[in-house]
């Protein structure tokens, strides 16, 4: 993987360091990030995260053997504005992707830029045939984001969590490599 593959117009996707813990803790604990933190399995997705919990997240990512997590740094300011994770826990044939952007940097297209880059990475540099992800059923913005990226809804796993007095479904989305390639050809006008 050459380094330039992990750059976009406005961002650099880089390894996360211990020095990122404070910034990570700040945006993960923002109320609007609850339920969409996209942190390793079994890390609380609701309760405030202590600094030691955040260190645990960084440690889990650093030990990930079947995937990677990157910090999203703005080229212009050097600020960490989010993180993204790709993993192939089951099979490199069908990796998963998750992305979280700090609330004060959402709605600027940064997530789209980064996710597009990582999806291209998975299809161009790994054996991936299907890339999948998920969003909570209440997360309409996340689901619209996935649709814009070219994902299609492939199911709803009921009662995957609880929020505001109701069960939450996990909405599954996926994208096949031929779909990705066709969309890209269309976008290129080729």
């Amino acid at each position, binding site marked *: 993987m050459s380094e330039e593959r992990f750059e976009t117009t406005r961002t650099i996707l880089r390894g996360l360091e211990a020095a990122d813990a404070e910034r990570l803790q700040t945006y993960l604990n923002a109320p609007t990030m609850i339920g969409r933190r996209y942190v390793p399995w079994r890390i609380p997705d609701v309760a405030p995260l202590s600094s030691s919990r955040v260190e645990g997240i960084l440690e889990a990512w650093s030990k990930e053997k079947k995937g990677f997590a990157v910090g999203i740094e703005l080229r212009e300011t050097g600020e960490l504005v989010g993180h993204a994770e790709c993993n192939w826990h*089951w099979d490199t044939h*069908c990796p998963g992707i998750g992305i979280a952007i700090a609330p004060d940097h959402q709605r600027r297209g940064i997530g789209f830029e980064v996710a597009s880059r990582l999806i291209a990475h998975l299809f161009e540099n790994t054996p991936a045939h299907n890339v999948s992800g998920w969003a909570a059923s209440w997360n309409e913005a996340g689901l619209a984001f996935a649709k814009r990226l070219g994902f299609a809804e*492939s*199911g709803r796993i009921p009662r995957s969590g609880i929020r505001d007095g109701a069960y939450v479904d996990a909405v599954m989305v*996926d994208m096949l490599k031929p779909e990705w390639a066709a969309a890209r050809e269309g976008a290129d006008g080729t």
Partner: protein
Amino acid sequence: MALEGRLVLLREERREDQAVFARLRNDLETQGWNVALPPSYTEAMHIKRFEAMEFSYDRDSARFSVERKETGELAGFITYSDLEPRLGATIGIAIAKPFWGTGVAFDAQEVLLRFLFLELGLRVVHLWSHSGNPRAIALAEKAGFSVSGRIREGMYKNGELLDTVVMSLLREAYFVQHTEFEDRLPDPFPGG
């Protein structure tokens, strides 16, 4: 009270079960994995895994040996994992071929579901299968599961591109099927 059904007992696994478990793991049709595993697992490996298990009151998974009541034969195993207490879990089953079509798998699944819904008070149970395993899907549907999601062409097995399939069984659907039981556990989020 044992986990007992019409045909099977679900009991703790034992050291002497491991030879059967190795055989299940070495059969491409029963190993139950997303990607084919090399059929080269040994009984010794399984014994090592078995002996490494530690006592805990705080377990989010369990594996039961499925024993046929009539003969005492070991038919396979059944598991639950990813337990979210009082909310959900995921089950899995592997039954040796001589017991296919005998009702053992369905009975074992029913016994485990009874434990998960009536003892652990779960609101939903999930399982993962694939479109190339109609036997497992039919078994789940018979118990009331329905397909809740797919990863399209998410598997390559036996030369075929297959959909990974998630199936789910809601608590209320379980009790509709089991009128012999009354659900006395209040739903914390009725209608949700």
